[in-house]
């Protein structure tokens, strides 16, 4: 019998000190650092970066969530994405 393929997803936590922008599953995260705009998709390599001012977009199963940031830090590890923004 053929096994159902498990599609990996990201678990995203996006927070400012007093604001929770998003916490939950997502398909992709787009943000900008010194190098340029980048996407993080499931199974991305472990990643640590300082974010530049701009827009962050989180693609969820329903609709994308986007917000502006003035600065931030993003980390990706084992499909767990943490965004610490406006700090």
């Amino acid at each position, binding site marked *: 019998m053929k096994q159902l393929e498990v599609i990996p997803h990201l678990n995203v936590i996006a927070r400012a000190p007093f604001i929770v922008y998003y916490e939950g599953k997502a398909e992709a995260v787009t943000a900008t650092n010194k190098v340029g705009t980048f996407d993080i998709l499931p199974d991305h390599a472990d990643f640590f970066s300082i974010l530049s001012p701009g827009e962050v977009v989180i693609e969820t199963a329903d609709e994308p969530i986007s917000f502006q940031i003035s600065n931030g830090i993003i980390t990706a590890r084992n499909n767990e994405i943490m965004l610490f923004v406006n*700090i």
Partner: protein
Amino acid sequence: MRRASAIEKEAKEINTIEDLTGIFESLASTQVAKVKNKVELSTDFFKLLWKRYSSIRIDPKTRITNRQLADADAKQAYIIISAEAGLSGEIDQRLIETMLQSYNPDTTDIIVLGSHGANQLSQRNVHYVRFFKVPESDHYIDVSPVIDAILPYSKTIVYFEEYVSLSVQNIRSIDLVSSMRDMSEGAEEDIMTAYNTIFEPSLDEIADQMEITMMKLALSQTILESSLAQAASRFNAMAVAKKRAGELIDDYMLEFHRAKRSESDRQMREVMISLKKKRQRLGAKR
């Protein structure tokens, strides 16, 4: 005895004060709820950030504790976090008095946040080297200028007001760096190194950035705690003022009724006297 109309006028003024203190009391209560929520969110945020920071260092606590921000002979700094305005009860006064017990002007510089604390220090002729307005908004607390000011110091002790409950607020002092360790208890995880992780920019730059960020968060946390304690102290001060105004109104009403009674008694007496005089005059004529 004062006239009833004058007493009634004063009672109305006290009534207005009672209404105003009632409004301030509910505002302070709303403020307590709002700041409490911020404190919880900010604490969670710090723990998550520390979790990631601790993963990029072999011994992050040692690194952050041993961070050489200044030479060993440098003075230490006391940061006083007070209210921006009055109406915060007597808690700022207690804060200043507690700080002064260990203050030595030869070894310590004072940096004060909040106009109320600055005024209290000036009244006591205590010199402070820097003053900052309490930096707060609904979205973030920008403490960057304060962090820049404390970097040259060998040690930074923060004096702030701690919220215990609505009726109890304490004065606390903490070493800013040690407090970062306390806030992060039990939040460590596996190490991420340059061999298995992409760092943009370099690992060192990211670690430096995170350390400054966490220092800002630790200071913001104390500002939030102070703000919570001040709101609670304000609530208590307003509750006491409202109660006192209520008691005053009761006293005024009692005095008002006595004066009213006395006025009608006096009028009655005057009528009786004039009747008596009239009767005497009539009797004399007969």
